[in-house]
């Protein structure tokens, strides 16, 4: 390592500087006054005259003092250096002396973090047959497309059931899009992509005409909604948010819209399948009310607030 050598050089330089400083201190800031040309008679002295024969004050030569001081400096440093010997003695080793103190970690690692409850969704990788039971040859109950009508990857909610397959791999139990929210079936794991866990949940109450968003079990959003009429009701059951549409122009649908897996039971031949969306409106005065063909409508400012809190894949309970 380079640093010790540099430190040693600095230390020797400091030593030299201190030695010079000590030397100058001892010499004093002014040079000794030169003896005036001695007159024949002794020059007058300040203070008391020394009676003849008395012992004169001791004079110490600056050079001598300087040499002694430097010698003490050298001896002191040598002793201090000598104390630090290479290779600890056995007793110092067994004390753990001479080993430097640890440097504290800067990594602030807190207490272990548990997981909260969450719902899982997954994208569909390719068109897939959904089976009634977790094995090849079980009855096919639905066909799962790879895309939503809007062209985004189709999503499914993944329930907790998992079954090991015969030839390795696992089967997973998924919730399908539909009119009842009770359509469940089995697909091989490899037909789905990676899982995403969401901690949010939406509850739409058709009687109270409210939409409530909860995160980790706590209410974080609530707003009045317009829901389907009796003729074209909003279906009840368990559904989920499938996609989010933005940057289109439509006063009717408002600034953005969420697609859900819920299908209107009444609109059986709607062009795009008659899926229920959560969207805005150009008639906020009608909200709350039973006003739509099944969609869940919010006033636009409520919708914009919701959009910041609602991730795609969130389960939606409509009751």
């Amino acid at each position, binding site marked *: 390592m380079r640093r010790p050598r540099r430190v040693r050089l600095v230390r020797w330089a400091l030593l030299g500087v201190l030695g010079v400083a000590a030397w100058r201190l001892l010499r004093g800031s002014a040079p000794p006054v030169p003896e005036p040309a001695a007159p024949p008679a002794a020059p007058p002295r300040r203070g008391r005259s020394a009676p003849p024969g008395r012992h*004169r004050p001791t004079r110490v030569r600056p050079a001598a003092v300087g040499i*002694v*001081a430097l010698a003490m400096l050298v001896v002191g440093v040598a002793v201090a250096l000598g104390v630090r010997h*290479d290779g600890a003695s056995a007793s110092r*080793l*067994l004390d753990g*002396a001479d*080993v430097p103190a640890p440097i504290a970690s800067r990594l602030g690692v807190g207490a272990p973090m548990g997981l909260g409850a969450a719902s899982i969704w997954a994208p569909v990788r390719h068109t897939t047959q959904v089976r009634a039971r977790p094995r090849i040859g079980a009855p096919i109950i639905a066909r799962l497309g790879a895309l939503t009508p809007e062209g985004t990857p189709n999503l499914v909610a993944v329930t907790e059931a998992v079954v090991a397959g015969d030839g390795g791999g696992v089967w997973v139990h998924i919730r399908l899009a539909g009119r009842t929210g009770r359509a469940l079936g089995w697909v091989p794991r490899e037909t789905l992509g990676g899982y995403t866990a969401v901690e949010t949940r939406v509850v739409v109450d058709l009687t109270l005409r409210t939409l409530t968003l909860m995160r980790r079990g706590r209410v974080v959003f609530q707003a009045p909604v317009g829901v389907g009429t009796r003729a074209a009701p909003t279906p009840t059951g368990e559904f989920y948010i499938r996609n989010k549409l933005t940057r289109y122009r439509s006063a009717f649908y408002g600034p953005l819209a969420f697609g859900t897996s819920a299908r209107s039971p009444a609109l059986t031949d709607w062009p795009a399948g008659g899926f229920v969306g959560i969207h805005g409106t150009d008639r906020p005065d009608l909200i709350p009310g039973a006003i739509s063909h099944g969609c869940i409508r919010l006033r636009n400012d409520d919708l914009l607030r919701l959009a910041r809190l609602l991730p795609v894949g969130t389960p939606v309970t409509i009751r």
Partner: protein
Amino acid sequence: MRLDDGGPGLSRAQALRRGSAALGVVCVGGVCITGLATRAVSAGSRAGDERILNFALVLEHLQAAFYAEAAGSTAFDADVLTFARTAAAHEKEHVALLTRLLGAKAEEAPAFDFGDTTSDQAAFLRVATALEDLGVDAYNGQAANLGRAALAQTSRIVSVDARHAAWIRSLAGEVPAPEAVDAGRTAKAVMADIARTGFVQGQG
């Protein structure tokens, strides 16, 4: 400074004053220069690495001797015996590596007395767990004090000691990795714990 023309040189009083001032400068300077000598080793210096590796070597000698003795026990379950034998072989290699790194600077192993902790299974499990956990904390306390090359070597050792710790804890029914991090401890604290065991003859 009052000029005193009482002759060449300084009066005793003056010499004493100036001498004290100079001595003060010298003492302070000497201390600063040597930097409180016993801890004056820079991180990553050869001398610093030597001290740390010798500290590690004592711990590895201890573990090696402990497991070597335990490997001969007749009272352990098969899987505990397997652990003791494997760990004995590993610690022997750890001792060899550190000794090779230190060369002539390697300190001698002290004498050990493990009592019945190498023959009684319950005691063995307890002590092995403590020694392995202690070793990991000792190494981790020094990781940032070592030079890079020395750290590259000690990390090969501590990684295996950490595995031993998890292994013996699993055998004892303890959580193998109870903490999110293995924070380091001071050498003094580690050696104090060792001293409490009484294993090292001539310690404490």
